[in-house]
């Protein structure tokens, strides 16, 4: 989201204020948070320059919202973050929307919206709302943030109460995706395509475009106290284009696309007293159509992953959590034969993560987390971050302090 758009929106809001009843101005609620983290790995630069240890890991957010009438509310969040190559503390409009609540069963939101995607995507920027620092990579890989962050469009939502059968919550969204073409994930896709072209030429003058996204979730709060089941589905298409200087051919147009990306997440949460158990299974169906010199080849690929997480609050000030997460780049090639055929290590095909976290709620507003990850595989470890090579097994230590108000 460009700064120009943010300025336009803020100017619009400021101009609109005198036109609206002034009562709701008294009800404006402002919340915010500031997080600063540290990452250190023994091998591999993962997410940032972690081998040397890095403080390039922070987030700032400011939320403004107000209830304008009994049924109409509006809100927005300005957000800034830094994580290695991503964010660089540019201020963006993370979300901003108007919400008209017709009834408990039906409401509509219009604006820039967070993508409904698993239990945690809509709160992934807000560190203190989750037990761990890094979310399980099987579903919430940091790389994927460029694609599943937010969209501009509309969202229908509501709740159906089923008496003894519990309650259903739903959200359905449709709109245009904003994709950061400079994100490591998109960069790694261009690198993958480049590797399939003779001479491995760099692709330049890149452009990335997503036509639309639609999807949503259905969550069932079951009659069993504390048990919640959910399902997410999302669909989109993404086009990529650029040029490459191919040996003995010269400058050539490179086109590739995901003709379709189908995304499904099945979720389970069980909360009893201070114990919280969560699990999610995530599967994606997509293919790459790669066109070079008029020749098109198609590579079907079905990534999938899952995690199980357990959290227990021992005291008001201490919560311990652990999760185990596995991600495979292609369900049909879990052993990484495709990489072996290219002369690359098989472990590029997966990434597994065993995580332990201690969360300290120092005060109502201050939170400190310490976290250890034992990683195996390199599905999200990038060659451009690790020019000297990539190790299969590595450990990552993370620490993060957050202040919220």
């Amino acid at each position: 989201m460009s700064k120009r758009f943010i300025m336009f929106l803020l100017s619009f809001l400021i101009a609109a204020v005198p036109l609206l009843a002034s009562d709701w101005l008294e009800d404006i609620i402002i919340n915010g948070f500031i997080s600063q983290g540290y990452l250190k790995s023994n091998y591999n630069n993962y997410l940032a320059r972690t081998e040397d240890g890095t403080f390039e890991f922070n987030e700032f957010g400011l939320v403004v919202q107000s209830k304008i009438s009994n049924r109409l509310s509006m809100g927005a969040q300005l957000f800034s973050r830094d994580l290695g190559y991503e964010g660089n503390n540019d201020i963006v409009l993370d979300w901003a929307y108007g919400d008209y609540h017709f009834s408990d069963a039906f409401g509509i939101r219009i604006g820039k919206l967070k993508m409904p995607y698993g239990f945690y995507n809509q709160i992934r920027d807000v560190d203190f709302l989750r037990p761990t620092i890094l979310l399980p990579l099987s579903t919430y890989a940091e790389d994927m943030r460029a694609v599943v962050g937010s969209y501009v469009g509309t969202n229908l939502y509501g709740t159906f109460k089923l008496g003894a059968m519990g309650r259903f919550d739903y959200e359905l969204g449709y709109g245009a995706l904003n994709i950061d073409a400079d994100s490591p994930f998109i960069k790694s896709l261009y690198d993958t395509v480049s590797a399939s072209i003779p001479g491995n030429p760099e692709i330049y003058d890149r452009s990335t475009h997503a036509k639309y996204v639609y999807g949503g979730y259905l969550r069932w709060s079951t009659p069993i106290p504390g048990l919640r089941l959910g399902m997410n589905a999302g669909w989109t298409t993404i086009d990529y284009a650029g040029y490459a200087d191919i040996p003995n051919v010269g400058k050539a147009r490179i086109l590739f696309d995901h003709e379709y990306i189908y995304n499904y997440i099945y979720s389970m949460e069980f909360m009893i007293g201070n114990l919280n158990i969560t699990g999610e299974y995530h599967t994606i169906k997509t293919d790459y159509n790669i066109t070079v010199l008029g020749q098109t080849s198609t590579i079907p690929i079905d990534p999938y992953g899952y995690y199980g997480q357990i959290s227990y609050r021992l005291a008001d000030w201490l919560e311990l959590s652990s999760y185990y997460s596995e991600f495979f780049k292609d369900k049909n090639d879990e052993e990484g034969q495709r990489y072996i055929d290219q002369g690359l290590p098989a472990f590029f095909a997966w990434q597994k993560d065993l995580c332990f976290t201690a969360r300290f709620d120092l005060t109502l507003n201050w939170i400190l987390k310490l976290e250890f990850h034992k990683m195996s595989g390199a599905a999200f470890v990038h060659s451009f971050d690790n020019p000297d090579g990539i190790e299969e097994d590595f450990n990552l230590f993370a620490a993060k302090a957050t202040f919220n108000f």
Partner: protein
Amino acid sequence: MKQYAFMPLIILIFLSASLYTLSADYFIIANENVPENKIDRQRLRDIFLGNTGNWDNGGRIILATLRRGKARDSFLSDIIGRTSAQFDRYWKEKAFTGKGIAPKILENDESMIDFIASNDGAIGYTDTMPEEDSKVKIIKID
């Protein structure tokens, strides 16, 4: 033995009184213009979790909660089924995704009663029973 015939009844009355005392760890209070006088547990839960935003007459529901204390812990455990930390996190999640405005947090019974009395559609709870002239009404749990 006849003189002991009423013992079970006396014990029952004593136990009932004890249970009443236990359930009266908190008092649900609302602004006088709130249309409902009796609310069942499920609806109360929906109200305090923001799943219901309006009263039956269409008026907006305004939530208030105590910052800490026995009444808060009892109310959250008994009605909401969450710990204090889980309740806070639930509302912060709503606030930081724009899906709801967190309940007004008040420090003690006195400020809670003042807030409820002066805000149409407000509902909250107190540790002690409000005085009769406090301009709030006590909601019975159905």
